[in-house]
């Protein structure tokens, strides 16, 4: 209950701070997703009201863009590049490996809530293919081994609370 109230308050804060910008909807959706990891369908009516749009229009925008999600992501979202340059250096094998390793397909989250897996069509790291992004961190020349190492590092970092 409290969490829901907090989310709504947060959404309202973000919406009222940005609603007067020209073309405010995308900045608002980014603001919400940055803050809580996704755009809860419950907040659509509030956003629509603040921008004098219909709920359908807001929903239409959220569903148009691949980046916006309406369900909570895992603790870490792994973006694997599927584009041509990465394919030229074996990204398909990496994709198969990652899916098997995590036991999930694209657009899914592991049962323990740790990892979500998303496809991405180019990270602009094409000179260092195959490429992957986790959070804001970009990885180049990713192999099965370095994929494992990156995940292990993330799990290690959780065990060591930062100072």
């Amino acid at each position, binding site marked *: 209950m409290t969490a829901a109230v907090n989310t709504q308050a947060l959404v309202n804060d973000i919406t009222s701070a940005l609603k007067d910008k*020209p*073309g405010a909807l995308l900045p608002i959706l980014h603001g919400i997703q940055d803050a809580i990891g996704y755009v809860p369908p419950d907040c659509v009516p509030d956003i629509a009201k603040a921008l004098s749009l219909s709920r359908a229009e807001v929903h239409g925008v959220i569903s148009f863009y*691949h*980046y916006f999600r309406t369900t909570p992501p895992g603790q870490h979202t792994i973006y694997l590049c599927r*584009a*041509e340059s990465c394919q030229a250096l074996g990204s398909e094998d990496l994709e198969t490996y990652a899916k098997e390793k995590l036991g999930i397909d694209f657009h899914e989250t592991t049962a323990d809530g740790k990892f979500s897996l998303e496809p991405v069509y180019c990270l602009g790291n*094409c*000179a260092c293919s195959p490429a992957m992004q986790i959070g804001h961190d970009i990885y*180049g020349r990713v192999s099965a081994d370095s994929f494992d190492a990156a995940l292990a590092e993330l799990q290690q970092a959780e065990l060591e609370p930062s100072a």
Partner: protein
Amino acid sequence: MTITVYVPNDSSAVSLGADRVAKAIAAEAEQRGISINLIRNGSFGLYWLEPLVEVATEQGRVGYGPVQASDVSSLFDANFLQGGTHALSLGIVEDLPYLKKQQRLTFARIGKTSPTDLNDYLANDGYRGLANALAISQADIVKAVTDSGLRGRGGAAFPTGIKWNTVLNTQAEQKYIICNADEGDSGTFSDRMVMEGDPFVLIEGMTIAGIAVGASQGYIYLRVEYPHAHIALNTAIANAYQAGYLGEDIQGSGKTFHLEVRLGAGAYICGEETSLMESLEGKRGLVRFKPPLPAISGLFGKPTVVNNVISLASVPIILDKGGDYYRDFGMGRSRGTLPLQLAGNIKQAGLVELAFGLTLRELLYDFGGGSASGRPIKAVQVGGPLGAYLPESQFDTPLDYEAFAAQWTVLGHGGVVVFDDTVDMAKMAKYSMEFCAIESCGKCTPCRIGSTRGYEVMDEIINGHNVEQNTKLLRDLCNTLLNGSLCALGGMTPYPVLSALNHFPKDFGIDEPAQVA
């Protein structure tokens, strides 16, 4: 004297461990009691050598690479701070042939400077173009850009000066400059390198564009997949505002130009200019019908210049050195330089800025050094996911808009993705259809439905079902996409599909020689 050490902050260099290297160098220097000045520069784009560490010496900047954090201690032992010899020594970086053979105009500063340091920008010819622009009339600024022969570097190659002239001559109380930084093409990263490695050159180019056409507001529409560029741009914009290079009364000229970065949300179609404007207006990124041209009725219905990052970043040098200077590079109607991006299965992947006219073969072998796997190069996709695949027989084509167009290929944004002989071109053709289906905005039927049907037909062909009949169907479908789509997504997906089919029929299970499209 404090020694200056450079470790790139470019996201590709970081993806290979540059942050760890920088940290290790700082820690090792402190431990050894040596005072160093560590600068996080942009990347020169010699990515097989990244992370590329440089040390400023009297002879010039001496390079080491590719450096990993575990190499740092031995670099100190080898006295690299004085340019000492190490297994990773590269000599003077500027003298490396890959760099020395280039003609860097737009990328003149990238790799050399500290990207968001305004003083460094000013000390390296920054804002000279703006100073000249402020001293001449709006029409003369536009004339300089027209004279330079600059054509849109996003891929469509429309003359930039003509676009600016239309906006200049359209009366309105509000006009806009939009930088299209939705660099979604696979195999391209030159926009990213500019935004991360020299953001002020883009800001300066946009400011000049704003002053030239009378637009007081600019937007950089940046793809969300570029978080490092986002940070660099916002930092540079804040610095430019603080120093009076953005905002009201720029450098005491009485001119106003405001600039804001807006993020996309993972839609490839928003790199199409009308879809981009819909997105900026807060809507679904549906393609608009043209006319009206954006230059007459664009963002919020106002006259709008929409230019790619590289086009705008080429403006400062044109205003600094003159349209003629820029025009003297290149061939035919392709004037100036093009930053080419070598990617995929290539030994020396990276950024190569050159005057138009080099052949693809020279680029692949003289710069690229052949495939990374050591196997023969089978196909090269030039111009992003909507660009044609070129077989070896077309490698002698000069890199020039018209020469490429003459053989049904495109130069696009200058991305070059290399595949060795293990690639299955039928699979690549199927992927092109899949990509079009995933990224179609859905407004026009050929693209929305045709891409999915194309994916299914390719599946049939790959599975060997009625190959002859299905190939005919595929060609027919491609013809509909080519002629009936509203924008380049549906309209150009046939380029990779049909070029794969025509040049590599065996991969489609066809033995007879290819028909001509």
